[in-house]
């Protein structure tokens, strides 16, 4: 049994609004998420899912409203941001580095988990490609490498934006089980996905953004 996360708390989003190009993307939305829960964001293309996730990560400032973590404004808690594992549309891996170098870089930058790089490579099925320069990987392999970031750190709050783009079935299954493990350890997850994801057995809240 894996250890429980030490840094977990309740996330609350109050009256959050986001404007883009003088248009309202979403307005006055309220959300909450507590440990051992999943929040599944749904909505059409352009409904503001990515913008919402980027606001939660601190890349964008909310135009209105606030985000609180354990009751305090998240913007004033540096640990809140450090505790997020964000995998967005961009993979965040360096094309010039090999698979293994990329993984080691992810590990050295943050509070590392105890898992060995070798084990991660085996789990995501890139063990044979450890020394391959990332540019030469296929889109799906790159995505797996990007998602491997989740295993390299001990962050309890995962924000995943379309995580399973271009992944094959087996890999999707692996990352689904990884998510389940993460949640049962007391982790939190917000994700968007147009793929079918099997999260049976977990407490999943759905939230729909509509124009």
């Amino acid at each position: 049994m894996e250890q429980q996360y030490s840094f977990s708390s309740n996330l609350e989003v109050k009256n959050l609004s986001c404007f883009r190009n003088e248009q309202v993307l979403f307005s006055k939305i309220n959300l909450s998420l507590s440990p051992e829960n999943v929040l599944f964001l749904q909505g059409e293309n352009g409904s503001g899912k990515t913008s919402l996730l980027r606001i939660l990560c601190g890349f964008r400032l909310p135009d209105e409203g606030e985000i609180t973590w354990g009751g305090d404004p998240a913007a004033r808690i540096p640990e809140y941001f450090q505790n997020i594992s964000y995998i967005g549309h961009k993979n965040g891996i360096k094309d010039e580095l090999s698979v293994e170098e990329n993984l080691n870089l992810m590990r050295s930058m943050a509070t590392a988990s105890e898992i060995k790089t070798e084990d991660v490579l085996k789990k995501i099925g890139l063990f044979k490609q450890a020394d391959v320069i990332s540019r030469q990987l296929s889109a799906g392999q790159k995505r797996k490498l990007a998602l491997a970031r989740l295993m390299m750190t001990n962050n309890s709050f995962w924000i995943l934006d379309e995580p399973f783009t271009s992944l094959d079935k087996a890999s999707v299954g692996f990352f689904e089980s990884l998510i389940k493990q993460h949640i049962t350890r007391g982790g939190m997850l917000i994700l968007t996905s147009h793929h079918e994801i099997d999260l049976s057995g977990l407490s999943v809240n759905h939230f729909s953004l509509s124009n």
Partner: protein
Amino acid sequence: MFNAWVQIFKRDLLIAFRRRSEIIHPIIFFVMVISLFPLAIGDDKVLLQKIAPAIIWVTALLATMLSLDNLFRTDFEDGSLEQMTMLKTPLSLLVTAKIAAHWFITGLPLILITPLLAVLLYMPSESISMLLLTLLLGTPTLSIIGAVGIALTVGLRQGGVILSLLILPLYIPVLIFATLALQNVEQGFSAEAQLAMMLAILVLAITLSPFAIAAALKVSLN
């Protein structure tokens, strides 16, 4: 905290080594442009000697600008920058690692190759050592100031034009003090005042601009 700094520094050097053509380009530009001057001016030793500091410094300035574009662009495009903002180590510290690596692979080679080019322009040896000293104090400043401009424009589609408008005026003080120092040495005066000013500008740039760069990068990510 400093582990992350070292990792970023090492990572950037490794990436630069694997994309050698991009490092070599500014250096080739530097060598080519400077060696064009003797060709264009002819064998006028006195004239070349007189304008040599200006030629080398202006070209160094342009070569630095040329090399800057890649400083944050790839990190911005592949999402590494997003990841860097969420680390325990402050972004303002991490950007100094990137700038240090950048200077290491562009500024330092320029300085190393300069004595050769200075001889080509008939510079006397005492001027050459002063030239190297001004470059040593000046090119890090150029890299740092340039980083501010790049951080501001990295999110724009056509940042290149704005970049030159933004940065070149800020390069002028460095250029003035450097060439003034060289003039003084040529005329047999001391250049200490100019060197002290250049050092002061460098210290000011190192201490203040990382915060500006980090803030600008966060704006660009928005």
